[in-house]
């Protein structure tokens, strides 16, 4: 209320803060980028920048996009790693069994979707909170993989037996751009359209803001929530395919490595966005920020074990910026 009534008194001041809020993420990104360029000579090289995109950015971006849908719907999905693993396991096993790569990939996505389907039943069907439901799935998924792999043995593809199309997915290059990066780009583009321009995306966003209003507006709320968690796992399954084709091995429960960074990137993106709504562009910038920080810290010669301190500090800084910002806007 104060915000509205006082707008006329402090239009310019207010406008400036607004503009800063809109570009806070870009500003942060440029600042971090500049700092590392100055601190580490090997940072600002074509080879390193490419390495950031391929090694740090690609997979985390896909998983974070998946996470963004869950967060946009007012929930969270702690089992994205499980969907990655199930996709990866199915994919590798079928390729190993001599099935055609496209079929195996499709089955991989189906394997990941199984996880989302399970979450959907727990959340929409039974009414368990997303946090607890997906936490349960995470644990069950971990056990399931131990059982499937006789106590956690990796499933390797023998170098000789890797089909060409499989290799292309992980290591191929089209017009100078690595295929995994193209996959990430496609996922990001489609997800951005779905979340901002589609009917489904609108319902998801409205659900995250006030689920009751969605239901009271005559929208099948539970069905939309169920589809949301299915979609999250399908996107995570795509990450599973890219991961497997890059490293040519399935390691049980390895997908969970992305979980915390994906949550971090999504919330950084949400927090620093103008309306405070989860959105794909914000998430992608958040992923870039995290990727640059972890790569840059490595290049400055900082001990690997200290890297997560960098991520943690980054999140504090983001929170501080957003808090100061909001306070300033409220005062204006």
């Amino acid at each position: 209320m104060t915000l509205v009534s006082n707008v006329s008194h402090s239009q310019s001041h207010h406008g400036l803060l607004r503009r800063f809020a809109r570009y806070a993420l870009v500003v942060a990104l440029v600042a971090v980028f500049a700092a590392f360029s100055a601190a580490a000579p090997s940072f600002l090289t074509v080879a390193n920048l490419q390495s950031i995109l391929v090694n740090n950015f690609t997979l985390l971006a896909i998983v974070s996009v998946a996470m963004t849908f869950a967060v946009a719907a007012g929930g969270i999905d702690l089992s994205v790693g499980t969907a990655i693993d199930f996709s990866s396991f199915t994919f590798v096993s079928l390729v190993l069994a001599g099935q055609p790569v496209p079929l195996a990939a499709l089955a991989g996505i189906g394997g990941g979707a199984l996880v989302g389907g399970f979450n959907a039943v727990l959340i929409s069907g039974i009414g368990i909170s997303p946090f607890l439901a997906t936490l349960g799935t995470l644990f069950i998924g971990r056990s399931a993989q131990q059982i499937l792999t006789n106590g956690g043995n990796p499933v390797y593809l023998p170098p000789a037996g890797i089909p060409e199309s499989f290799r292309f997915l992980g290591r191929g290059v089209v017009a100078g751009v690595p295929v995994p990066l193209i996959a990430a780009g496609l996922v990001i583009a489609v997800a951005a359209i779905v979340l901002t321009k589609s009917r489904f995306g609108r319902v998801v966003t409205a659900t995250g803001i006030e689920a009751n209003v969605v239901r009271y507006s005559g929208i099948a709320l539970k069905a939309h929530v169920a589809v949301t968690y299915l979609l999250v796992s399908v996107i995570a399954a795509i990450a599973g395919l890219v991961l497997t084709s890059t490293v040519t091995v399935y390691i049980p429960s390895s997908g969970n490595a992305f979980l915390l960074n994906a949550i971090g990137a999504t919330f950084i993106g949400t927090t620093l966005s103008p309306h405070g709504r989860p959105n794909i562009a914000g998430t992608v910038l958040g992923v870039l920020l995290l990727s640059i920080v972890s790569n840059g810290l490595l290049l400055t010669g900082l001990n690997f074990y200290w890297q997560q301190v960098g991520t943690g500090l980054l999140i504090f800084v983001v929170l501080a910026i957003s808090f100061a910002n909001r306070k300033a806007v409220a005062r204006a």
Partner: protein
Amino acid sequence: MASPQEDGNIGPMIRLTGIEKSFGGTKALSGVSLTVERGSVHGLVGQNGAGKSTLIKLLAGLLRADAGQIEIDGVVHDHLTPHAVDALGIHFIHQDRLLVPTFTVGESLFLGREPRIAGTPFLDRRKMQRRAAEVLDRYFGLRLPTSTLIAELSTAEKQIVQITRALLHAPKVLVFDEPTAALVRREADMLFRLIRRLRDDRITVIYISHYLGEIEDLCDTVTVLRNGRDVATKPVAETSATEIAGLMVNREIGELYPKRTAALGATLLRVEGLSTPGRYEDVSFALRRGEVLGLTGLLGSGVKDLVRTLFGLEQPASGRVEVDGKTVWTKTPAQAARRRLALVPEDRRRHGVALDLSVAENVTLASLDRFTRFGLLNGGAETAEANQLIDRLQIKTDGSDALVRTLSGGNQQKVAIAKWLSRHSEIYLLDEPTVGVDVGAKVEIYQLIADLAARGAGVIVLSSDLPELLGITDRILVLFRGRIAAALDTSETSVDAVLADVTGSSEALRHVG
């Protein structure tokens, strides 16, 4: 009428003089005075918005008065805090007053005042156990194990816990705020016996209720509030439910309401023998095109449940609903909306509009299918629809992309209605459509309701504001304890008559007579 009391104290227990309180630009209380005598049961009545709850919050130290004086037990208090009020021995019993559901009865009773074993920091559970049992037995003749969880108790039992908690701390004043609203008859009778016991023990009671029959039965004195003023304080022996009802309502409103010209058309909605035991029983009525039907009743009378059932938020145990002559079974709001039903819920900020979505996003939320092609939204068409409705309903906003949070209550309500206009709904269920809405927007909403009816829609208005119902409806259904107590033709009834049915005093009078 301050007279020396047996216990030696002189003067009233509570004296409020010239209390004023505004919220923003709205004056909630404009110079209220209230004197509550020691050891009396003092009734406080008034319509919704009359200022009862504001007055009680001031007394509880939850709000601070803009002007006026609060005197308790002969001492003037300038800065009351909830803690100080508690220490003065004033306790509040309210059904919504929170007890922590995961606490036990014992923990709730002694919360914040746990007896310790002398000289140690440890809780004296034995003493807690014993004192709780004493009070429960003395006043309620009841054994309630102190280890029971609050969540497992019925509404009446929770109230008993609240009252017991107050009694454990030697109270001087107990304030009951709509205590019987959620009680069944037998439980209410028990409460009345208790309040008489309290009076015998010289504890002062302030009793707030909609049920005028209870005021007549229970209170020594009654104060009527209307539009933020105390319009009368009378000994109950010298007044009647009818006179109190007359004092409660403002009869001078007339121009507020639009002229109705709609001709009634075909039957749009028919409800037959709808029952959910314990909520409402055997409810039948019909709604025709062009008709505005009023629906009213006290909290717990079943009106809310009835409306929720029609919109698919609850399921009836038996009965039938017809829309346009066809029997429909609305199990979800989605199905209800498909049958062209629309609900504008009472809790606007939680159910009606999403505050952090834009005006346009809210307006099209119920009609997204109309703006969707191959799964994608047509943003231009959405904005055009929003702008058209902003124009038609005179919604005051910075634009269709402004967040609904930035709108005033009345304009938020218009957005909640616009949502269903965009859906082209035909049966409108409006639950307290003008609560928290300023007078200007109220008039616009009344006009909008009249326009809807004129265009051939059917409108059901659930309201506890009786002059409003009389001003805008064609017929009024009154529910009392789950049943239709009266079906009145608006042109042939009066506020007094409706109020008598609402409060069950016509029934009580019949019973006595």
